[in-house]
């Protein structure tokens, strides 16, 4: 149980997918113009990262490892994730139109979010078991969501600021992300295992 807590803190804050591992920059900058859309995107990412962590763990341990085909990891994971995103979209569309209206437009974008493939590969290379993988995926998604929501709130304010022409848009967004990442560096010295007495 304590081990899960360590994984959760590490994936969400200390090794934040966006601000410390630099994964998922394109949707981070692309979908952060407004706070509401950023929230929708975060929910979709948490959902897909958790599902992808579970499914890719099963693929690795029940298909690739027994057949001795671990070298096909990249090919099989990306296909599984692409299919999973498509499937989730169809299921949500049929069963819960409300959720589909909230998440629908973000789902196709998620296949290109490298945090999703990243969490799948990181789970396998860290030797997590199934539960640990699921927790790691959910916490990673929450951490990414926290980052994009903070960033969207900053950007809404930034729209009123006078910014020189060459720095408008993408460049100032990157510099702002850098400052946000500097704040998150504060978590890097936090020893969770010792804090909860493991």
């Amino acid at each position: 149980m304590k081990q899960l807590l360590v994984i959760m803190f590490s994936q969400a804050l200390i090794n934040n997918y966006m601000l410390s591992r630099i994964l998922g920059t394109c949707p981070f900058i692309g979908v952060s113009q407004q706070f509401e859309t950023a929230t929708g995107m975060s929910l979709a990412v948490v959902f897909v990262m958790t599902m992808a962590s579970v499914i890719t763990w099963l693929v690795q341990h029940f298909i690739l490892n027994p057949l001795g085909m671990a070298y096909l990891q990249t090919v099989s994971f990306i296909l599984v994730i692409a299919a999973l995103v498509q499937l989730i979209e169809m299921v949500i569309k049929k069963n819960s139109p409300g959720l589909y209206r909230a998440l629908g437009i973000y789902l196709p974008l998620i296949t290109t979010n490298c945090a999703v493939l990243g969490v799948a590969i990181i789970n396998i290379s860290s030797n997590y078991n199934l539960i640990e993988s699921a927790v790691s995926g959910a916490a990673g998604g929450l951490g990414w969501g926290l980052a994009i929501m903070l960033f969207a709130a900053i950007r809404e304010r930034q729209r009123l600021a006078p910014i020189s022409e060459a720095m408008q848009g993408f460049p100032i967004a990157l510099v702002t992300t850098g400052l946000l990442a500097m704040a998150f560096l504060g978590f890097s010295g936090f020893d969770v295992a010792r804090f909860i007495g493991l």
Partner: protein
Amino acid sequence: MSSPLQAFTNGIYKENPTFRLLLGMCPTMAASIAVSNGIGMGLAATFVLIGSNLIISLLRSVIPSEIRIPCYVVVIATFVTIVDLVMNAFLPQLHAVLGVFVPLIVVNCIILARAEAFASKNRPVSSIMDGLGMGLGFTLALAVLSAIREPLATGVIMAAADLGFNGIRLFPQRYAMAIVNQPVGGFITLGLAIGAVNLITAKKKKRSSDGAQGGAGK
């Protein structure tokens, strides 16, 4: 339809994937901590771009358009696996430093973007040249960014562990700023670099439009 030479030069400056098209940001910031990492990542992506552009261009009349994206992804992932295994065998230290970013070349948007925007519509020779140009443009951008970050962070430039080369020391270690090697440095350096490129492009455009007003037509 563009000629092979045009396709090649296009990616270097006019449509530089990093500075102009703003694609493939994650590996750009993650790999530009040292010149050797930047060039290694750039060349790996170049190989994948050339291979996937060639195969997709050859198969462009066979692949049905409804399922083209999964087909492209499989082709790209195959070349990424080749790079992953070869790099692990011959450049183990570079492979260890780049880590998860080597398999993640598969979701580098430059590669899928060129497959969709260029290789699926053009002949194999042009597609190879487009892949080479885009790949070298990406490598060049990585080399520039890492040539700024590496010395600022360590005081050393061009260190390459796999080649047994310790690099050239520009100034003593105690003046180095380790934070430039962190993601923080990546975000800020890339942001300022894109800002600088925007400034240069805007100045150039202004000068040419000033010239055009005095001269004839456009």
